[in-house]
């Protein structure tokens, strides 16, 4: 296969805000090329042979970790999984010491999942290796947004093109969602229109500075959109009075059969997982023909391969 890198990526992937339009497209197009590997009988490329990638996870997220692990292994990298759950803020070894330790062990890249916003930015300041943000607190989750855009484009666009003119709605707990923040930035970068739908308590103060429209009426938005992305709602938000009950939330903002019928034919249903079936999304919607939720999972590997390939592959030659 031949991939000519014409656009340099930034050193780290911490935020979608670090990318420009061409860089985002490069990742999506590279992912399309690499997806072909996944369909080949031998699912492996030698590109990252001899490089070490550490999955540093301060939060449980089996699906994201496995996705990164599969991506790294298909590129022949050595993968070390480091689960540091429970040793978060002010307990145990500091993030800085962990970063220095991993560097001393020769990690070429660190994939970081952390419960605090900005942890990946901090890590990047303490290590010479590449840092990939795999979700930091309520800040961002850039590879999730990239795989979402990749999935949407596969159905509604084509390789080499962006999402200009498409209308995507993001529904749910935007306030606490790193998936929403990354998606708002990326979808806007790719030319799509974004409408956020949530109760006002789950929309951040300051949203007026975002390139989005905001609605509290899901039934008015659904007929207009090309894709709807349902966000996971944590039931503990109820205890803090963000909404009165999960039943009321489900009635007002959940995607169910009646609401699915409001969607245009061909409009997509996405969810970053894990789903609360019966809360933000009903089983009929999650498993229906318009759902691309399982494709998102499959595409995650291709997109993460592309990110690793572009961030690390471009550096081959240093020390080799």
């Amino acid at each position, binding site marked *: 296969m031949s991939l000519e890198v014409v656009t340099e990526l930034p050193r780290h992937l911490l935020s979608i805000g670090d990318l420009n339009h061409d860089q985002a497209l490069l990742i999506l197009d590279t992912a399309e090329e690499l997806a072909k590997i996944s369909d080949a009988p031998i699912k492996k490329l030698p590109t990252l042979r001899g490089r070490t990638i550490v999955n540093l996870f301060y939060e449980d997220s089996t699906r994201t970790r496995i996705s990164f692990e599969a991506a790294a292994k298909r590129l022949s990298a050595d993968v070390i999984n480091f689960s540091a759950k429970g040793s978060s*803020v*002010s307990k145990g070894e*500091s993030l800085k010491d962990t970063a220095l330790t991993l560097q001393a062990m020769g990690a070429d890249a660190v994939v970081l999942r952390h419960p605090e916003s900005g942890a990946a930015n901090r890590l990047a300041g303490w290590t010479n290796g590449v840092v990939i943000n795999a979700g930091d607190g309520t800040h961002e989750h850039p590879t999730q947004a990239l795989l979402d855009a990749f999935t949407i484009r596969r159905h509604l666009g084509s390789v080499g093109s962006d999402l200009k003119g498409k209308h995507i709605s993001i529904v749910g707990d935007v306030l606490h969602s*790193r998936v929403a923040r990354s998606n708002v930035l990326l979808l806007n970068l790719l030319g799509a229109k974004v409408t956020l739908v949530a109760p006002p308590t789950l929309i951040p103060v300051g949203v007026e500075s975002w390139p989005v429209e905001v609605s509290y009426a899901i039934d008015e938005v659904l007929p207009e959109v090309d894709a709807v992305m349902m966000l996971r709602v944590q039931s503990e938000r109820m205890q803090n009075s963000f909404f009165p009950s999960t039943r009321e939330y489900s009635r007002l903002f959940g995607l169910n059969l009646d609401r699915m019928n409001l969607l245009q034919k061909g409009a997509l249903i996405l969810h970053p997982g894990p789903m609360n079936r019966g809360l933000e999304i009903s089983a009929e919607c999650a498993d229906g023909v318009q759902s691309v939720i399982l494709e998102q999972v499959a595409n995650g590997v291709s997109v993460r391969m592309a990110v690793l390939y572009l961030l690390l592959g471009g550096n081959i030659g240093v020390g080799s």
Partner: protein
Amino acid sequence: MSTYLIKDVELVSGEKVEIGIADGVIMELSNKASQSYENILDGSGCIALPGLVDLHTHLREPGREDAETVLTGTRAAARGGYTAVFAMANTDPVADTAGVVEQVVRLGKEAGWCQVFAVGAVTKDLAGESMAELGAMAHSAAQVRVFSDDGKCVSDSQMMRRALEYVRQFDGVVAQHAQDPKLTVNAQMNEGTVSARLGLRGWPAVAEEAIIARDVLLASHVKSRLHICHVSTAGSVDIIRWAKSRGIDVTAEVTPHHLLLSDDLVESYDPKFKVNPPLRSSEDIAALRMGLADGTIDIVATDHAPHPAEDKECEWAGAANGMIGLETALSVVQKTMVDTGLLTWSQVADRMSITPAKIGRAIGQGIALAVGAPANITIYDPSKNKVVVAQEQISKSKNTPFEGIDLPGQVRHVFFQGNPTMISTEMVAR
């Protein structure tokens, strides 16, 4: 005691004078000294200010001597041109008894870099539940007049009312850290467009303003003296302006960092910008400057809050709140208020020395330079410029938010009760 003559220095009035110092007082203040003095100091290009008084300093001793001690903190104060500081009560143990406040004052005397006044806690252990023995602290050798749970808000309305009333018997003042605790659970930064983007939990302006509004009404009702610590929002300035127009006995302070730095700096996620109350928007900064200029905000106070490196070299949410500020305060005020034409040097003397001493009842401090006055003097050269380097700060902790910023001005000589603590920008060995 040695005698000193400072030549060619300007008073805040613009008048050029020679200042003769002997026996702890200003002996002469005239265009040509009539006596002879042992030491002659150059004051050319400099302004003579009454020694600065900081109403809000965290010296960390007892308890967190790894961050700062009374000795290191007062030395940093002297370097910044201060001759008096008020040591905040949130030490470990808390300064909520006569024993602790007397210890802090004694350590200050032994260090000798500037005068230390102790702030007493309003409630036992800063817990907000029962009143500390305010009278015992007031009548102790420390003679406490300022009471504050700073770091925490006296959020219970009844407790605040009682404290305001009670301190009247010894001419005390309650200095409130205005922060509604329920509105700021786990709050990380100013709530607004930057927090929305960064995914950091917001500390809304209303959490400060609602407490200030309540407290000025309480102070009015019980006819007591109220001081508001580190005002940070435009709305707070409006409420205080309204309260003063009604004759309510309220004073307020603003910190140098809130006059200069805005919340977009948090984009870096570098906890050196983490502080409570948080850095606000540029609109807030403009309102704070106007408030300080028109007298709505009475004084500048540093909220000097030292923290060791490990408390800042971590994730944002895990980092401690606070910034050091004693050594840079006067320069920041020059940059934000004097060089912008908002304050004269005479007004700077008022807001950084005379009025803070008055609010804190700091006897012997904050006295305008005059023959016979105590020789607490700061000689400041506003023409020098310097880029701040954290490691050059002499505070035990280096958590300055101003690193890399070009600040004007340099303190040249400082006299504390007639003794030099700094001569020609060098600390004087004690």
